């Protein structure tokens, strides 16, 4: 399983969590197996503009990501991830990438639902 995490430079488990998946510096990709971290690498983000928020979705899908941990996201990219078969989990309060990944592997993160999206009526999240 490949887990994608929006990150600040330079990425990796000690990097700070990226607040918005589409505008993060880069992604940390964590390969996990049986609840354990096997490999950690980084993936550059792709630039996108107003209305182009599906570019990062396609980018992560093309790079084999199965699960995304995110703090902020709009409804359209969330639907895009779901339609691509990528599960999204809510990890807004994680200080670092490593904390978020370990929380996910321990089963402590909730699925990212539409009421958590920007403009979805949930708590305010950076859009």
């Amino acid at each position, binding site marked *: 399983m490949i887990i994608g995490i929006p990150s600040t430079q330079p990425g990796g488990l000690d990097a700070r969590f990226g607040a918005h998946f589409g505008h993060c510096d880069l992604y940390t990709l964590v390969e996990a197996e049986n609840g354990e971290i096997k490999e950690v690498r980084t993936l550059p983000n792709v630039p996108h503009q107003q209305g182009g928020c599906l570019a990062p979705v396609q980018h992560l899908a093309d790079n084999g990501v199965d699960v995304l941990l995110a703090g902020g996201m709009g409804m*359209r990219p969330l639907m895009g991830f779901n339609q691509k078969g990528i599960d999204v989990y809510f990890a807004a309060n994680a200080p670092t990438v490593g904390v978020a990944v370990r929380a996910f592997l321990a089963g402590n993160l909730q699925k990212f639902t539409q009421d958590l999206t920007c403009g979805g009526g949930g708590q305010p999240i950076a859009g």
Partner: protein
Amino acid sequence: MAGPYFQVTAKTNAETVWKSVVLQAVFGYTTSYFTMKKNIVLFTPSLNPASGFITTLSDDEDVRVTTVATAEEMLRLVREESPALVVLEEGADARKAFDLVIDILSINAMVNTIMITAMDPESWHEKSEGLGMLEPLPVPPSATDARKLLATLGRLGVFT
């Protein structure tokens, strides 16, 4: 059509040429269907089909414009043809336009959407937040707006 024939445009890509070669070999002709035109669906009942906005879109060699009269027809096309863009006029249907956008995204989030609206920028931003829509078009949109829209779609990689 007899003889070797390729429909070559400035934006011809490898896939188009490949399909043209296959068609040429198998059937001896090529068709406009395989020129990979991108479908733009217009759900804009109040726009004149002869307006500069619509004709500018229609005249683009990379675009096929399909006009629909109902929301149901629009959603059917989204489901069956995965258009590059849906242009939606606010007030075109009894349902709220943003609800229709959510319906579109629920079917296929890859489909781009844009709304023709007189809404003030602040209200539009608030209501469209998270829906990933293109910047709205004014009422009525002009030929210049169509050219800007095509340029935006180009930047988004729609025509590549």
